[in-house]
């Protein structure tokens, strides 16, 4: 019953699963609200305590080497600045495919994540490396645009060859209770990810948890994104603080765990923003392992959206390999 394929073509009726899970023949505002508000609540204090306790786990030396390597492979190396240039993206792509110039055994990262006007250059730079290209779309980061613009934005990225689309939900619609609108936007973007004659682009749905205020909302938004057909749920744009935190990631992992229990399908999780150290990354992996289980310990199902994290992971890899503490001049600037 466990699906381990990474991408399935969208079914003829993309919202069939959603209707089944929600238990309604026609999805409307009322039935969605009833479903989302019927999900178990999250007690903030208890959730944060649990995450903090997991953060005190220490892992074995061999496992730590493996975990660092895994974390590197899970990185979506990201640049999302107004000042991004083709040159900057090209440099980032070079680093993504060979993160540690001193160590050929270092695996490439999972993906490079850029704005959609830079997708083309990234695709060219990364051809044949196995590193995916992810594009942020749907009027990232605010999501404040018409549906027409959001879909066009997505189409641009897909047409330019993006493997993955990181969309934002309309937090305003979510917070004002217009759940159907959020669901329909996700579903529409998902349809836009379809590439005639090719694999559809993977859809990562950014909840922007820092704007959702409560863990209850994080859980509801996660379910809403999954109902809409998300392949991944992602915490943040990186433009809002707080971004990814350990308890937020944990709550989202609980959601994908429960989604699999309900549907048999796996959905990935991507914390993004705020994870800067190898130690933080390993704590996240512990939470993945204990909350969703080891099936999720794979770049297909868990990613880190990060920029500076990669260098710290590399420093720690070097330290483990050499037994010496390394320094910032032994890794490359982005």
């Amino acid at each position, binding site marked *: 019953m466990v699906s381990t394929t990474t991408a399935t073509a969208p079914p003829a009726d993309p919202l069939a699963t959603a209707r089944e899970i929600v238990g309604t023949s026609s999805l409307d505002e009322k039935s969605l609200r009833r479903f989302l508000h019927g999900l178990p609540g999250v*007690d903030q204090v208890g959730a944060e305590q649990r995450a903090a306790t997991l953060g005190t786990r220490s892992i074995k030396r061999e496992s730590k080497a493996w975990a660092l390597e895994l974390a590197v492979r899970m990185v979506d190396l990201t640049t999302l600045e107004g000042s991004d240039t083709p040159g900057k993206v090209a440099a980032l792509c070079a680093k993504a495919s060979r993160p540690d110039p001193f160590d050929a055994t270092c695996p490439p990262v999972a993906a490079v994540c850029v704005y959609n006007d830079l997708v083309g250059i990234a695709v060219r730079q990364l051809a044949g490396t196995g590193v995916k290209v992810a594009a942020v779309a749907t009027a990232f980061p605010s999501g404040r645009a018409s549906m027409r613009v959001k879909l066009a934005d997505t189409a641009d990225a897909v047409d330019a060859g993006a493997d993955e689309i990181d969309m934002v939900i309309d937090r305003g619609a979510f917070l004002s209770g217009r759940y159907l609108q959020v669901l329909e936007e996700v579903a529409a973007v998902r349809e836009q990810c379809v590439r005639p004659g090719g694999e559809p682009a993977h859809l990562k749905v950014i909840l922007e948890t820092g704007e959702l205020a409560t863990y209850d909302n994080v859980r509801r938004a996660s379910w809403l994104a999954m109902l809409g057909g998300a392949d991944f749920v992602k915490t943040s744009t990186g433009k809002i603080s707080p971004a990814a935190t350990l308890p937020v990631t944990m709550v989202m992992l609980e959601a994908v765990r429960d989604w699999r229990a309900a549907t048999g399908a796996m959905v990935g999780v991507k914390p993004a923003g705020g994870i800067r150290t190898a130690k933080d990354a390993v704590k996240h992996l512990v939470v993945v392992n204990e909350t969703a289980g080891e099936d999720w310990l794979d770049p297909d199902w868990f990613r880190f959206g990060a920029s500076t994290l990669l260098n710290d992971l590399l420093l720690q890899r070097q330290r483990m390999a050499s037994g010496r503490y390394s320094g910032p001049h032994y890794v490359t600037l982005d």
Partner: protein
Amino acid sequence: MSPTAARRSASRRSGTDERVAVRKTYKLYVGGAFPRSESGRSYVVTDARGRFLANAAMGSRKDARDAVVAARAAAPGWVAATAYNRGQVLYRVAELMEGRRAQFVDEVAAGEGLRRPQAGRVVDAAIDRWVWYAGWTDKVAQVAGSANPVAGPYFNLSVPEPTGVVALLAPQRSSLLGLVCVLAPVLAAGNVAVVLTSTERPLPAVTLAEVLATSDVPGGVVNVLTGDTAEVAPWLASHMDVNAIDLAGAAHLDWADLERAAAENLKRVLRPAPTADGGEPTWDAVPDGPARILAFCETKTVWHPKGL
């Protein structure tokens, strides 16, 4: 008519058509009713000089058992009453006692061998003690409770709650004031009571029971047994559905045995107050604080996280 007055009128035999007084039958008070002892026994109660006053019911262990059942049944309602309401109910007892003041004065004077002005002061103090405790009902949780500043994101509150069914061995000497001093605080907290009255001076307690029956104290909240404390107390002390026992009236008994029996279900035990002569205190003074209320309270502490 009080027993003293009844005796007086009965002894006036000058006129043959003088009215014969209607005497009162002194019975038990259990579950809001006035039964005789299930044992059918009674005993002679005399005044301080040994003259006959009445035949009182001789409560038995089975009467005690029934009283505990009645008390337990009444507990949920009484504990659920608001503190404000309990205060009003207790104050009402004082009002009704005031109305029967003369009767209480007669009974206390006869039973305790006091002159009427002395007995009057005792009855006044007893009435005032009800008023004092009536005022405590909605204060005690504020005084004895607390909001606890724990080191973490938790709301944490401690409140006193009634222990449950309390067996009261009422003072032997101070048959009314002493009784009120041990009974009122138990009720103020929301406990229910099974009272063993003073063995030799039980009559004011029965009259108090009549006051309670006509007051707003629900039936079963107070149960009054007259009889031999030494005979019945061990049954209450060892009763597994009694939560606490006040040994105020056991100073003359081997109360260590009662305390030992009470250990079987870990009853809360209030020992007889130590006095210089080993006897009972006078109960005259207004208490220094709510210690007697809190003696039969449990502290409950509730935690809840504070979060979004």
